[in-house]
């Protein structure tokens, strides 16, 4: 039994979560302050993967990063980077696809903190970045944890978008969800069951972990 798809999936989910954490902390902070039309448009774009069929997103990423034309051609010629049918491509697609799961809870938590917390810190002479690091961030820990786990779990379950941009290349882009599909296609139900059971178990442990961690919160961590 080839366990590489499982390791590849865990690697993809870990890298995606880390990248999204770095991108989404400042992004969510910026979005949480004010509601300009520009911010609404950016937020709508970030939210699109929640409602768009993954295959549509994958199709456009495939077009955009194809080495034959446009951005993909420029990246290939300038930096020798190829996003189509490569692990980097899976990471890029996952980052876009899972972004709303990271941004949403962090933004919502920052908005729920009283404005007076930041203001008190400013009157004590602290800069915006120090206030964010030492006052805001420590007080949204449960939401931060929820966002990370949901992003990780959501990346584990990606199928359409990774299939479109990455294909099914063993040890490169063949993640667990694709391995399940591939095993069923080749009538290997035992392998499909093993992959499915492992994915189910990991996801269940993660989600129940979030609920246990947030058990003292009044609301469901998914709200």
């Amino acid at each position, binding site marked *: 039994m080839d366990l590489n798809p499982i390791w590849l999936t865990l690697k993809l989910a870990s890298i995606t979560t880390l990248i999204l954490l770095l991108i989404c902390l400042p992004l969510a902070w910026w979005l949480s302050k004010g509601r300009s039309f520009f911010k609404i448009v950016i937020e709508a774009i970030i939210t699109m993967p929640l409602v768009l069929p993954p295959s549509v997103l994958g199709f456009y990423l495939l077009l955009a990063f194809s080495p034959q034309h446009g951005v993909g051609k420029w990246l290939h010629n300038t930096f020798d980077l190829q996003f189509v049918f490569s692990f980097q491509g899976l990471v890029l697609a996952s980052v876009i696809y899972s972004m709303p799961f990271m941004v949403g809870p962090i933004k919502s938590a920052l908005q729920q903190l009283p404005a007076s917390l930041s203001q008190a810190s400013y009157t004590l*002479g602290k800069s915006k970045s120090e206030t964010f690091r030492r006052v805001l961030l420590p007080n949204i820990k449960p939401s931060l944890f929820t966002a990370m786990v949901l992003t990780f779990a959501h990346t584990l379950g990606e199928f359409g978008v990774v299939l479109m941009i990455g294909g099914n290349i063993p040890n490169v882009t063949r993640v667990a969800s694709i391995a399940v599909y591939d095993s069923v296609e080749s009538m290997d139900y035992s392998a499909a069951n093993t992959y499915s059971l492992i994915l189910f178990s990991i996801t269940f442990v993660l989600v129940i972990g979030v609920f246990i961690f947030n058990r003292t919160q009044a609301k469901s961590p998914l709200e």
Partner: protein
Amino acid sequence: MITINIEKKLKAYSGQQWLKINREFIDGSIIKIYGPSGAGKTTFLKIIAGLATPEKGFIKVDNTIWLDTTTETSLSPQKRCIGFVFQDYALFPNMTVREHLEYATKDTQWINRLLTIGKLETLSTHKPGHLSGGQQQRLAILRALAIKPKLLLMDEPFSALDHDMKMVLIDDLKVLFAELRLTVLIVTHHPQELAGLGNDELEIATN
């Protein structure tokens, strides 16, 4: 000497109204600010602290101009060195009592003195969630004093306290304000509850 001349448009249920204040305050005075809800008492304090900006205005403290809308000058809240006690206290849930003060100042001797003044020495490792209303209120005041401000702004600091606790705190504060020679602006709904504390007052009416 603090010179304030500001005009700010406020949103109200009845439409728009203006907050217009033109006053001077002498150093070391304790000013009670009162007026009906929605008149702009909190906004007035926030404008002084640099946390809100008026449409038109001028604020000068001693010889430094903090705000002048005609020249688009506005000193950031960080540079105004104002002690601000928020109505909801705005304590940081992640920090202990001592950490609140350490966040504001590195002066260990001053921190220890403040803890003594506020009678919070034995609670220095407690977080705000484990303090009573009165202890939280004292911590909010101590944190504001930790930066050794010349001007202290207090937004309805006693609203959540019962009568007895209020009286005890007011007595302590009288001594403290005199000792630190602070200029203090206190917003209150009931000026009579601060009997003996202030020596000047400002009524903010709806315009």
